[in-house]
């Protein structure tokens, strides 16, 4: 049954090495950017986590440059994409993404449990 439910705010911490979604319900999803080689413009590119997740936790986006002297519309580089765990708090801990990632880039802190490849 569907109910209109507001999900908690998720903090997303993005640096050069990883993107980390921190839900307020004790779930943390970390994606190692050095291992994940996702690229939107590579047609054979791996998007297994996007497709396998039953609740649709992940999404992709182009990287934004953090240089604020650049006008906003030019800050996006459409050739450079990353995967983020946007809906972190909807994760149900099935570890499908952890198991399916060929590079072992995804790590989930699911409450007390740690789901790692």
């Amino acid at each position, binding site marked *: *049954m*569907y109910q*209109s*439910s*507001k*999900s908690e*705010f*998720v903090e*997303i911490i993005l640096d050069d090495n990883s993107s980390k979604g921190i839900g307020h319900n004790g779930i943390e999803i970390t994606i190692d950017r050095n291992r994940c080689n*996702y690229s*939107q413009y590579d*047609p054979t*590119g791996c*998007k297994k986590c*996007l*497709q396998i997740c039953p609740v*649709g936790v*992940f*999404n*992709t*986006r*182009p990287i*934004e440059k953090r240089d604020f002297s650049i006008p906003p*519309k030019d800050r*996006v580089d*459409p050739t450079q994409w990353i995967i*983020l765990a*946007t*809906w972190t708090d*909807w994760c149900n801990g099935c570890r499908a993404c952890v198991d399916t990632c060929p590079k072992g880039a995804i790590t989930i802190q699911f409450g007390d449990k740690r789901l790692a490849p």
Partner: protein
Amino acid sequence: MCQWCQEHGDRDHKWYERVENYMFTKIFPDEAGQEKAKNEMRATFSQTEWRYSDPEFIRNEEFLRDRSSSGFGSQIITREEMLRVVRLADEAAKREDSIMVVGHCPCRLVLEGVRDYVCIGFGMPVTMSMEVGYGRLPRGGLTEHGGADWAQLRKDLRKGVKVPLKLEEAEQLIDEWEQRGLWHIVMSRGRLPLIEAICNCERRYCTYWMNRFRSGVDEYVLKGHFVARVDPTTCVRCGECVAKCQFGAIHYSATSDNVDIDATLCMGCGLCHAACPNDAIDMVPREEIPIARNLW
């Protein structure tokens, strides 16, 4: 009457049944013909993708409310209504000298990483999202999985090639989408009541759906004008409708051997009606069902 009909419809027509609502020149007469205004409206496709994929954007309820009050809105429609919508849009396009195109779904691109040609954009010169629009489908397929000739496609599109979608093609496509089990929404992307696109979507990939059911901003996608009702005397309990419903509105009760449709959960997409082999499911106007009358 739904919110959009009250604001943008008239006594006899729903908001998406008025041909004026498809015509940019009627709704924004001051801006029409001004190149600057058009260019401002035509955010490039990568900018659209960007906005849809921004966690700050799709997770922030206040921001979403702000945007929905600035003219974002959509509504679920049935297949029959959608055919009518396409016909109206075609008529408006002829009057206005614009074109219809089929483009890929930006939500699906950012949530699934797949370019899936399931959206029809209207009034092409002023439509925001459909810069990458094509009247023809790449290699006769709806989904671009391999992408072998996609590079060439992109080159063509950068040159500004746009191939208009014919009405007959649009009707064919709608049938295909219906068979795939996608529900349809008619939408405006920031300039209500101008209707800019039809989307065919699944629950999983629809950003508007998430705005409503994950972030709680109902105005992004309203329920349709119809509610499904099952006739138990002709129903054979084959289970086709249960398999099609993406909203959890249909249940099969093994004890009483009955199929129940919960009118409060029904979004009115009409997929069960189309899937039923015995025509046991009717689409009834929402006003006739008291419990669902005011649920939009």
